[in-house]
């Protein structure tokens, strides 16, 4: 797949994230997503041994990967990756509800709803002043911007011990997170 001209990505600061799930609910409200469909989701992980226990949270929707499995695997052509900014766009009008994408995506980004018979996923709130999650976060822990800039930030990392290897799809997301969470 051709590389995007200027890939956009997420910067998620887990050193600030308190797992409040405001992003998740703001996203849910924006998409009017039924229960069961979590287009953005905060996952919480823990490690260490008592009492030296640690925990951290990762807010995630679609990572607009450089090598998106959904785009490659969709038989209906509902997915496209935009050249200008690398945003992976899903068009529900074309979606046939086969759910291949939900099995292919390592991050669970495409969310199927049986009543609607279609998938939806994060299209980065195209058309909004800024993504709803970014504007919602009480901790200012989610940002979007050019991936090249985001990846160069101090402490930015891509590989976490509790998430799938970034080698699979090359996700356009970077985290700032406590060192115990690095893979």
């Amino acid at each position, binding site marked *: 797949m051709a590389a995007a001209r200027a890939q956009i990505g997420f910067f998620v600061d887990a050193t600030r994230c308190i797992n409040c799930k405001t992003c998740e609910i703001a996203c849910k*409200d924006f*998409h009017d997503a039924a229960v069961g469909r979590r287009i953005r989701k905060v996952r919480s992980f823990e490690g260490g041994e008592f009492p030296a226990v640690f925990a951290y949270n990762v807010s995630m929707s679609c990572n607009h990967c450089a090598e998106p499995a959904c785009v490659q695997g969709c038989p209906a052509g509902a997915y496209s990756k935009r050249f200008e900014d690398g945003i992976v766009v899903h068009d529900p009008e074309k979606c046939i509800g086969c759910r291949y994408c939900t099995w292919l995506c390592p991050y669970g980004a495409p969310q199927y709803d049986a009543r609607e018979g279609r998938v939806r996923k994060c*299209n980065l709130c195209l058309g909004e002043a800024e993504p709803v999650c970014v504007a919602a976060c009480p901790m200012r822990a989610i940002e979007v911007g050019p991936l090249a800039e985001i990846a160069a930030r101090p402490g930015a990392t891509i590989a976490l011990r509790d998430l799938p290897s970034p080698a699979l799809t090359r996700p356009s997301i970077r985290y700032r997170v406590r060192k115990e969470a690095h893979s």
Partner: protein
Amino acid sequence: MKTNEHDRTLVDRRLFLRLSGAAGAGLAAGELLGRWPLAGAAGVAAAGGTKIVAVACNHNCGGRCHLKAHIKDGVITRISTDDSPDTAGRPQLRACLKGRAMRSRLRNPARLRYPMKRVGERGEAKFQRISWDEAIDSIAANLKRMVERHGPASVYIQYATGDCGLISGHAAAQRLMNLMGGYLARYNSYSSACLSYTAPFVTGYRDTSSYQTLEHSKLIILNGFNPAETIFETNSNYYLARAKEAGARVVAIDPRLTETAATFADEWLPLKPTTDAALFVAMAHVLITENLCNREFLDTYCIGFDEEHMPAGVPAGQSYESYVLGRSDGVAKTPEWAAEITGIEAHAIRNLAREYGTLHPAQLLQGLGPQRHAHGEESVRAGIALASMTGNLGVAGGGWGGGEGGRRIEIPIGGLPTGDNPVKAKIPVFLWTDAIVRGTEMTAADGVQNGPLASNIKFIFNLAGNTLVNQHADINRTVRILRDEALVECIVVSDHFLTPSARFADILLPADNSLERSDIGVPWSGERYIVFGNKVVEPPYECRHDYWWLSRVAERLGIGEAFTEGRTEEQWLEQLVREARRKDPGFPSYDELRERGFYRKDPEEYVAFEKEIRDPAGHPFPTPSGKVEIFSKTLYEMNQPGIPGVPHYIPAWEGPAGELAGRYPLQCIGPHYKRRTHSTWDEDPWMEEADPQQMWISPSDAAARSIAHGDRVKVFNDRGALLTRARVTKRIRPGVVAIPQGAWYTPGKDGVCRRGCINVLTSQKATPLAHGNAQHTILVEVKKV
């Protein structure tokens, strides 16, 4: 939950517009930071006739939140929040997940729709629809009968925090009753009884520094302070993040590695619940024996720390230093002594004390959980003693200890005037069930003020509240009392849903939601803003504002004019704004406020007790000695068990070391859960998806009971039992389980709660001084079912 079809169509169309409208927008990489680049396309969506109106989330959190409802064709299509410029000095007031779920709450099909009267046994929840006229007639007749037969003191307006607007139902009920001769009043709260009652004995009054001051702190101690779940202020977590990024060291003292602790704490000290005061006393021991006390501060501002600074007429050996060193009782309160009690290793206690004694300024942030315990008074007092010993009182970046809470808001807006209550007797709120059973026999020993009570409680207004059943302790006792119609003769409830409390109504009324009425919210935190919520949709079915029907009750009783003064609830709001504008010229006009949705002064650094420390002669502490009373002669002279002259660690009656621990070996606490405000939002499916009701249990306690993550478990003690799911996590101290408070009591035929309401397990035993709720002090056993 069924999505409104009309709603769905709108969303589809909007999504289509976004996809098509945005397709051509490509921007250079350099322009992308800060604002999202595709804003040009937003105009397309906005052109569709969407109106954006300010609304409010007005539940009982420390903050009140500003929301915006996006309305198209009379349907709320979306909720957003503050979008004023987000700057370091004036960060936006961003609502949490609950406020963002307002549409889900609004369209919940379980909404109460019509006035109803009870037709079965009380608590059976068998109701029959009646007209508003019949409901109002019945309430007026019952009220009249009750006041004639038992006097106004038989009427109780239940503690209720579901609607925290300025024109709330309980304020209106108080106004009504004051026109009818009064009602039985109460003091204290379920949140902070021990703090609010005890702090005045030590510092004269209760106050809190603003969270902006955290950025000055070199050390921050989170003692049961978990603002990630209990929203103390809309931005309290954000300020904590900034303080951490500015270099503060953060230590959490908590049985759980809470969301706040997990994100910010450098060190977690997982103490046994009920033992905070022992930890603090041992820290005091280290500060004294390692010469880390600020003696000059103690000598200047405090009384009762050492034997040289005691009030006259007190025998030797009563100072705090004497207690800590063991001169008075032969027990030196060393870190080794505390390690046994608290479960925290002695070296960790010693390290924390040394850090607290050397890193200056340091904030001891005490959440309210540690004081909702047996002898919760003592952790408050011991916290203030520590803050005094290190000179952290009245200092920016320091902290008073003694518990977090509200500071005085400077925005001068009042609520619906309630008038004066001719009934002077008051009960501590936690003892209201006792006031039903033996009110007239209660005395000052029960905390009754201006007693005796002229009557037991016979009539209850329970408006937007769930303390009638769900949030009070020992539900099984509570419901036995409420079921007896010879005791309380009439219960009037208004709410949005058939809550556990609403099930016990005789007259059940459907209330409007905060998006269906206009009102003003004032944060209890003291943060310098207020929010205005516009009415944006009509109340559905026959839902009505409490003020509306209370006005009609007043009319029936012949005091309609006196009650309303000719005003609707909206006209009262206008009146309140007019009065505020007289006191504060910056206060916006009613129309400006409606449009903007909030009035906010720039946040400021507020330091509690700053003036008393800066100018002790001009501003003595308002205590008998004019100083911080580490030793309180007032308390000492009460000469009561559980009320010592200086802060003590007193083992809890249902603590980890007691006799009962043999049978019920697990301590059980009931933390706040971010998906609810107390019991509000328990009904919401979005919230349940985000954060289901579950019990935290450690891997070792789970393994010992063959419990796996996600298993259904039964939790029980002599007072009751519940079923819930186990969340097996290393984030809780072994020996402790945590069941988030606020789940709705849902008994099966066997009386076992299916939803996991912790208050079937809690006790009505009150704390010794404050007569407060010790709802976190319980022992239980857990088994797999």
